[in-house]
């Protein structure tokens, strides 16, 4: 009976992860097609309409579907393994899975038939078919079941194990779930009160400023929702794979707490150039954004220290000799290094973006696209790959086939992502806007950007090859032969936690602080739309312009 429950938890995780990677491959293919499309190179099916449909699909798939399914699957796996017992509420979890899947299919189909070319950030007053919004709502709303289950599983474990520290991995995935609930509140409110009423024709005008401001609540925090599974791997899986120990359990807990507290009340830094928010609040959230860097800066040191322990234990000597002594043949170890390099480069771009007035230099240019591709498409997905390579053998009971291919895949992804994003940074500084399908490269102003865009298009192809390799490895490992009995194991800290302060073993305090910060940072910027008369007509992206029915 218990065995079956464990299997059920594993299957639950595996289904989620397969959906995530199953969506990932076509989404990468769309991205790879967009690259030559906007370059001077010839492109198959060169239709600018199709470009925007593709961008919408790529963004919706990557930002909502891949990440949410991955986080949910990883969350169930972490719950079962770190708590050492089956996931409680397994039926609800499966219901959530089905709801999210239906939502994803709905959104994708509506985009494919051209009824929702509004990009994943929705862009009011552009208006998509209500079914697209319902799809997004189902996907995001369905994942709230997961949020509740993560919190519930942590709480009943604490009840069953009074006084014991919640395992770091469980603590962290619960932080991820709580963050997602806070983050999703913005987009859910936008969908329910701004977009869907308009799409259904209940309201006649749409408040663009309100919609955008609500979406920023989601916009930055969602990135940290994507990021946190990667950080969980940094802290709990990587030191084990490297053969060492986690330097500090407390640093891990503080990191996840800071990520939770500081990544939500900062979203306005995505709309520094919007005319609908006062400069005071823009500075305020810029200031808060600086604190978001803190957990990452702490993590960089903490993970380096953990790897140093492993390297020295393996015979590394001298100041940096431990680096060469690390087991680089392990995909997880390699992935951490590649991921941290991309996190550093992407983080640098982030520092530029968040620096208040300096944002003007790069806003709306390909610099920003490069930044978030390095962070999410680089640092984060690389860790998703590594997590998959750790989890697949544990769930399927078959060895990874093979570690060498996995290393190739990781290196290809790393190379491809750098080749894509370094030219984008440069063209961004040259003033090349993002979200533009076609450039006239005969224009003397645009011409110098041509070679850079061509280079990045080559990077796109490398990424596609890497994504195909990923799926090949996962399929081979899933259906391969051989038996393996090894549970997913987490690193132990140098000083394993024994009794820790209540505030580092739960989230009540931090949720209260976050609530105060949210009221401070967002209370007025959202509240102002109650008295600003700023509603405008909506623009349906698909019109049937007969019988005088206006937008």
């Amino acid at each position: 009976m218990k065995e079956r429950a464990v299997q059920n938890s594993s299957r639950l995780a595996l289904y989620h992860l397969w959906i995530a990677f199953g969506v990932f491959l076509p989404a990468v293919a769309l991205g790879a097609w967009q690259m030559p499309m906007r370059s001077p190179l010839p492109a198959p099916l060169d239709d600018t309409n199709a470009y925007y449909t593709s961008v919408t699909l790529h963004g919706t798939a990557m930002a909502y579907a891949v990440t949410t399914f991955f986080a949910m699957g990883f969350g169930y796996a972490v719950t079962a393994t770190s708590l050492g017992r089956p996931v409680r509420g397994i039926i609800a979890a499966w219901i959530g899975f089905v709801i999210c899947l239906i939502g994803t299919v709905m959104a994708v189909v509506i985009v494919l038939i051209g009824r929702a070319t509004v990009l994943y950030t929705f862009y009011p007053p552009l208006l998509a078919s209500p079914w697209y919004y319902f799809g997004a709502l189902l996907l995001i709303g369905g994942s709230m079941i997961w949020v509740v289950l993560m919190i519930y599983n942590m709480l009943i474990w604490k009840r069953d194990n009074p006084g014991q520290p919640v395992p770091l991995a469980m603590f962290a995935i619960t932080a991820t779930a709580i963050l997602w609930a806070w983050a999703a509140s913005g987009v859910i409110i936008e969908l329910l009160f701004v977009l869907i009423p308009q799409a259904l024709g209940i309201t006649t005008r749409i408040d663009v400023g309100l919609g955008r401001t609500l979406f920023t609540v989601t916009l930055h925090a969602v990135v940290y929702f994507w990021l946190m599974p990667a950080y969980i791997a940094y802290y709990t899986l990587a030191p084990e794979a490297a053969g060492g120990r986690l330097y500090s359990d407390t640093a891990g807990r503080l990191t996840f707490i800071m990520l939770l507290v500081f990544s939500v009340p900062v979203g306005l830094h995505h709309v520094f150039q919007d005319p609908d928010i006062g400069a005071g609040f823009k500075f305020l959230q810029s200031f808060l954004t600086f604190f978001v860097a803190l957990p990452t800066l702490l993590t960089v040191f903490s993970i380096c220290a953990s790897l140093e322990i492993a390297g020295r234990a393996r015979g590394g000597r001298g100041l940096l000799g431990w680096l060469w002594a690390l087991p680089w043949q392990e995909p997880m170890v390699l992935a951490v290094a590649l991921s941290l390099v991309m996190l550093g480069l992407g983080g640098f771009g982030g520092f530029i973006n968040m620096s208040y007035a300096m944002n003007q230099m790069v806003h709306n240019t390909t610099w920003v696209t490069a930044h978030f591709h390095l962070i999410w498409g680089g640092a984060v997905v690389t860790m998703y790959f590594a997590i998959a390579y750790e989890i697949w053998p544990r769930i399927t009971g078959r060895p990874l086939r093979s570690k060498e291919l996995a290393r190739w895949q990781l290196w290809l992804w790393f190379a491809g992502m750098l080749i894509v994003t370094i030219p984008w940074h440069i063209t961004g500084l040259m003033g090349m806007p993002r979200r533009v399908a076609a450039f006239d490269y005969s224009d003397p102003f645009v011409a110098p950007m041509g070679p850079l865009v061509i280079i990045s298009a080559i990077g796109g192809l490398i990424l596609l090859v890497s994504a195909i390799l990923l799926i090949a490895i996962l399929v081979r490992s899933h259906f391969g032969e051989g038996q393996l009995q090894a549970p997913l194991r987490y690193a132990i800290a140098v000083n394993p936690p024994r009794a820790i302060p209540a505030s580092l073993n739960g989230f009540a305090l931090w949720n209260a602080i976050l609530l105060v910060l949210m009221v401070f940072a967002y209370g007025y910027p959202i509240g102002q739309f109650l008295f600003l008369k700023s509603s405008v007509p909506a623009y349906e992206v698909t019109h049937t312009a007969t019988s005088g029915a206006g937008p």
Partner: protein
Amino acid sequence: MADSITNPLGRPVSDGIIPEEEISRTENQWLTVMLSMLGVMMAIIVVTGATQALHPPSNVETIDPTTLHLGGEFAESNLGTAAEPDGSVTVRMIGEQYSFVPQCVQVPVDTPVKFRITSTDVIHGFLLPATNVNTMVVPGFVAEVRTAFSRPGIYESWHVGPGQSRAEGAIPQLESS
């Protein structure tokens, strides 16, 4: 759970080897250095921001986008460059699907310039490469950017209408002379 809590190595894991205090001290030192670095960056932003009056464009001013052409500030005949009594100039522009109006405006060098731009329909982006002029043009609001051009030249701006599922990229020109 207690039955399962045995040491994975079969012997007790002591936490007395590296005192937790030492780890905490190292981490606190690292965090202090990091906070100082962030503090220096923030100080630079605040000092330069105050001395040079740098802000993101943030004029929270509403306007009805449907009736712009019927009269008022953004009527057709009022668009373009206008000289102000104090010697500065104001440039009024419209962003619409799928261009900016007027397409070419001239402004003097080393003179305070105030761009006032609004949209008749959806969100547009207005940016002048090689300058810091960059704003979103959101329907229902007047975007205002104040700057001055120190170099004469032709600045091409981009018309970025995100996700309108149509080809974009019309380039109005801005000449400063």
